[in-house]
């Protein structure tokens, strides 16, 4: 851990101590220092600026309310990140359920029931030519992310965009490390299936571990 990270943690600890002692304005330091990180996480999880801002506000409100539970040796940045991830997954699940209720029951998605990824491939499957066009690639990537379950999306973003450890992901998903690892794998598998449809038959065969 480098010096600047240590100084940020020390400054956070002082701000937390003051907040708990009744100095509400001391919490401002924590909000100002960590808002941008939480915004980046929230935007990656939702793909929406407005939703991301709401998540940031809610995460800090919850952090303030639960500050007494914060262990003094812990890292506030990691803690508020986890609060944001927890809140986002609840919010995404709730929205999916609301959406599902509005649609036919057969289209309902669940974290527990794995769907056939091939059924989720968008009609306009990307070709190598189209993949070279960044705007189209971005749209395909966002579509693919949107088709993941909330748990898969959070696990994927935490692991492959923010470099979080499996244990950290498990804590955010309120799950165990084996299940968290499976969720990350499932997310990557689905994304590959959707973004590389031309590779799908081979990938399916490879999953069986064929002889070279």
């Amino acid at each position, binding site marked *: 851990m480098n*010096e*600047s990270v*240590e*100084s*940020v943690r*020390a*400054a956070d600890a*002082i701000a937390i*101590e003051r*907040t*708990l*002692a*009744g100095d*509400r304005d*001391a*919490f*401002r*330091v924590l*909000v*100002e220092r*960590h*808002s*941008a990180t939480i*915004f*980046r996480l929230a*935007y990656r999880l939702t793909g929406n*600026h407005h939703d991301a*801002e709401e998540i*940031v*506000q809610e995460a*800090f*409100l919850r952090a*303030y309310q639960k*500050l007494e539970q914060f262990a003094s040796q812990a890292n506030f940045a990691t803690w508020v990140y986890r609060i944001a991830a927890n809140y986002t997954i609840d919010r995404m699940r709730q929205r999916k359920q609301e959406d599902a209720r509005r649609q036919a029951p057969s289209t309902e998605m669940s974290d527990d029931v794995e769907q056939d990824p091939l059924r989720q491939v968008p009609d306009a499957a990307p070709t190598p030519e189209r993949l070279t066009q960044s705007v189209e*690639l*971005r749209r395909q*990537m*966002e579509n693919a*992310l949107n088709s993941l379950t909330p748990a898969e999306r959070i696990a*994927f973003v935490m*692991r*492959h*965009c923010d470099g979080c450890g*499996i244990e950290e992901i498990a804590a955010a998903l309120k799950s165990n490390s084996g299940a968290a690892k499976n969720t*990350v*794998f499932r997310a990557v*598998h689905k*994304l*590959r299936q959707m*973004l*590389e449809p031309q*590779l799908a038959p081979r*990938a399916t065969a*490879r*999953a*069986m*571990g*064929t*002889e*070279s």
Partner: protein
Amino acid sequence: MKHLSEEQLIAYQDGEISGRDAAAAHINSCAECKAELNRLAEMLAAYQALPIPDPGEDYGRRVWQQIAPRLEEKRSHWWQVFLEPRRLTAAGLVAALLLVAFLAGRVSKRADHGDAALTAEQVRQRVLLLAVGEHLGRSEMVLMEIANAEPEGASVKQVSLSSQRRRAEELLDENRLYRQTALQEGDTGIANVLDELERVLLDVAHSPGNLTPAQFKSIRQRIDDDGLLFKVRVLTQEIERREKTGKQGPAESGSAKVERNNQA
């Protein structure tokens, strides 16, 4: 050897595969697995590179403005607050003020209110002036050090204020105490300067130990803009004058002088 399965490739990419050496040997000798691994790595890299809008430099401030009205004050336990080591200095001074006021009260009652006897109020004022004068001296040192701090060389990208930050934290508690006391005494001149001082001390106390030149400039600019060093020096002189003359620091004259100087 069999081709690596997709799960094994993903685990390999994650650095979490068991038998990593064997897997690496296979990938190096198998063009198909190597190509699969490259495609996987490219896809993950593309996701990492997806653009995220910049919320702006003042984003944290805006978030605070939005949530601050919704935060309830936390009730603190007085014993937790006052048992913290760095608060003991301030707590000790409070005790000294109370003790002196009590003793002086007894003395002044027995002294029949003679001219030579100090009233409880006069003694209390003197103790307060001494304490505030000493506090201002230490605060001025911190402000001076910040005003004169420079990066150690052209290549240095950060300015270290860790020593000043620690002292600013210690000064903050005392500063609050004196400011509140001055307000209660109706000495708005002292209270106003202490209020401005408190804002800067708060900035310094909450700053990281190593500041970027921009963060450092912002703190120093605040000191300069407020003319804080000047105000602290004027107030220190005023307090010294009151101590020497034994004048009871009528709030009007002392405050008015500081106010006048502040406007100068």
